[in-house]
């Protein structure tokens, strides 16, 4: 039985959000309480946080590669490149060939024009299945499939950046992001890997995904509003995020002189049936599990709350009940939006960077309390939009 556990350090961060490119730019924008960047026209009446303009050539040098990807894959491949550069792995074939990758991905992404043309022709048409065969065969471009496949974000990262140690893609919305970090971290702690890349990407400008959320009554409509202010009928405002972390065993990082932002402590996840009170109860149990890993004193939290009424209120209640020495929670959904798979990874990235600078973020909305002192550790929460609860502890390196 493997019992010796190694420390897992965060030695590289690649983060792109609507607030900007790079973890430093995001830290700066959040610390300056810069307003959220919102596009409320493209998918009205539902606002989104868009992807910033990226100079793709910087991380995806070949135009041919860029063309083979859809926006979510470009965003992810770009962010992964930032993380690898940040950790000093870029252009190091020996290290990249034993870098193990776990990507949290959705997938899909449609050819909107083709979809609309087929819906138009097929509407109230008894022959629509035959029309479908003809139109799909003739109108969709062959490589679209590769841009839709969930594991092709990881595939593109291997191709563009040369990460080849191993490659696994977790699907399953927010929980996939938490479980990707949990699994890679556990492999490194147990000696099954020394170094790895974990991350994900979500492009919010996705009519097909918004459609699914909209018909599930999960979207916030109207003007932008902070997560905690959305109330019982609140919903998500989705945000474009690419978030990648390089995780590394402490001895491996020290041996190559790598800079560590922070240590990734315990990561736990589970699920509840989402009956009223179930999220609060499950989070309460998970909080007890990780309590020994948290320092005494006030609790600093980076929350992945979606803004969806019930679960968001239950998460807040679970945190209030647990943090009996003071709670300073920051719901990043209020600033960068909710990004499904990479949400928790982005929050770990921001936590690690804040700890590295010995700071914490100012409140993102009036209901969030300021901190009296910089925290020694930050708790990251994840409550999925329909399933899955998780927690991660990020501590000073």
């Amino acid at each position, binding site marked *: 039985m493997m019992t010796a556990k190694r420390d897992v350090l965060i030695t590289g961060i690649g983060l792109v959000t609507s607030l900007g490119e790079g973890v430093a730019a995001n830290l700066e924008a959040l610390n300056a309480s810069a307003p959220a960047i919102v596009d409320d026209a493209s998918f009205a009446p539902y606002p989104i946080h868009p992807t910033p303009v990226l100079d793709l050539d910087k991380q995806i040098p070949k135009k041919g590669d860029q063309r083979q990807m859809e926006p979510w894959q470009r965003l992810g491949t770009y962010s992964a490149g930032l993380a690898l550069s940040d950790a000093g792995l870029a252009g190091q074939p020996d290290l990249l060939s034993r870098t193990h990758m776990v990507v949290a991905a959705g997938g899909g992404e449609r050819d909107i024009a083709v979809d609309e043309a087929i819906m138009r022709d097929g509407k109230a048409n008894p022959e629509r299945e035959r029309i479908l065969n*003809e139109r799909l*065969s003739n109108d969709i471009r062959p490589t679209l499939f590769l841009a839709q496949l969930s594991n092709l974000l990881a595939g593109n990262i291997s191709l563009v950046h040369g990460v080849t140690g191993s490659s696994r893609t977790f699907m399953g919305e927010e929980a996939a992001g938490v479980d990707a970090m949990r699994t890679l971290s556990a492999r490194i702690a147990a000696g099954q890997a020394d170094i790895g890349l974990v991350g994900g990407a979500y492009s919010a400008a996705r009519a097909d995904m918004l459609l699914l959320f909209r018909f599930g009554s999960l979207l916030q409509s109207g003007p932008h509003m902070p997560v905690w202010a959305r109330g019982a009928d609140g919903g998500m405002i989705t945000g474009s995020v690419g978030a990648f972390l390089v995780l590394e065993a402490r001895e491996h990082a020290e041996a190559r002189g790598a800079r560590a932002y922070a240590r990734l402590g315990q990561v736990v996840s589970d699920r509840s049936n989402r009956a009223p009170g179930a999220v609060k109860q499950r989070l309460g149990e998970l909080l007890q599990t990780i309590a020994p890993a948290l320092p005494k004193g006030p609790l600093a939290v980076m929350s992945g709350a979606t803004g969806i009424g019930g679960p968001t209120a239950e998460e807040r209640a679970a945190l209030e009940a647990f943090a009996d020495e003071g709670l300073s929670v920051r719901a990043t959904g209020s600033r960068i939006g909710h990004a499904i798979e990479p949400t928790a990874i982005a929050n770990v990235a921001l936590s690690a960077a804040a700890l590295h600078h010995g700071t914490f973020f100012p409140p993102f909305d009036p209901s969030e309390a300021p901190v009296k002192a910089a925290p020694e550790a930050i708790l990251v929460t994840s409550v999925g939009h329909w399933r899955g609860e998780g927690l991660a502890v990020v501590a000073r390196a």
Partner: protein
Amino acid sequence: MAVTDHQNRPTVVITGAGVVTSLGQGKATVWSSLVAGKSGIRRISRFPIDGLKTTIAGTCDFARASNDAAPDLSFRLAELAVDEAVVESRAGQPGNFPGPLFMAVPPVELEWAGRFTLADELLNSDPTYPAIMAGPAVMHPEWLARFAFGGVAERIADRFGTKGSPISLSTACASGATAIQLAVEAIRRGECEAAIAAGTDGSIHAEALIRFSLLSALSTSNDVPEAASKPFSKNRDGFVMAEGAAALVLESYAHAKARGATILGVLAGCGERADSFHRTRSNPDGKAIISAIENALGDAGVAPSAIDYVNAHGTGTPENDKMEHLACAAVFGERMKTLPISSNKSMIGHTLTAAGAVEAVVSLLTIRNGMMPPTINHNVPDPLIELDVIPGVARAGKISTVMSNSFGFGGQNVVLVVAAEPA
């Protein structure tokens, strides 16, 4: 057998196995068809095939309800396979499995039936995405969980009472093997004593078929469906899509022994390596595949000479079979000309996300029955592929250790080593 392996990790054993394919439901049915050299490939009857280049597939129509979407059929197939595995293992109690779930699932999304519903509901407006977004407030809350990527695994977790957060994963056509690898690693870490590793794919619909067709990946030998899948043949012209599911109950040997479980086999090793050459093709040097094979053998602590039989990925695409031969020959040398290797896909078709799990179960059955299933339709051997593919007729033999290969788009290469419990 020792409770720890050659690296002092918990030995991982198989105590339950289940499988559903185009050949039928359950190990007994699937196995008897495989050794009889039967094909499960048939003409598609589920949707109109007008205008399609490929009109055949290994569908599991027997398990399907008429209004099933891909995630529904994927769930149903997985449920059958997991149930067979869990019942056989006698681990836990019904609805209360004592460990986590690792589940290879196909990517899912809202399908055309749904999009047409939205178009119809829009009555007099042009059905564009913006019009639908702003359109009438007919809600479809049931779509959310149904078409969520985590939906199938969530339902399996509910049904069997697995513990913790269910893992939904994809490594394309290597997914089933990755599910097994993740479970093995979790048991070796001591995170759990037992786990369910499963793969499922019920995603044959018009768009899925057309997508593969547009990549020229599918066989177009439509005239005689049973003869279309012809791995390692000179006239191979692509794979045949198929549906199916398979599941293993994996357990630490210590745990299995303590509860008096029957040991069906040993999951001795897993090897993996990502390729960085091309989205759909292997590097012509075969290094990533070779490395995945070597990693699997190393992980299992066996020399190439210990492998008695290879369960090939063997899709029947010109590219795969060529590269698989090249890599195997590089690792096994001259012996590869006589080492038996066969492709179940010649009979079952390519179950995509499920294939690695299906083939792990078939590998186990090969060991337990002392019989190697054939590669059917091998009528025109490829002179460049010098392999003993067990053409046409199953062959008896004492098989102790099997290597099972799985490769996928996106540079995914996973290799498993399945072994008999040492006497």
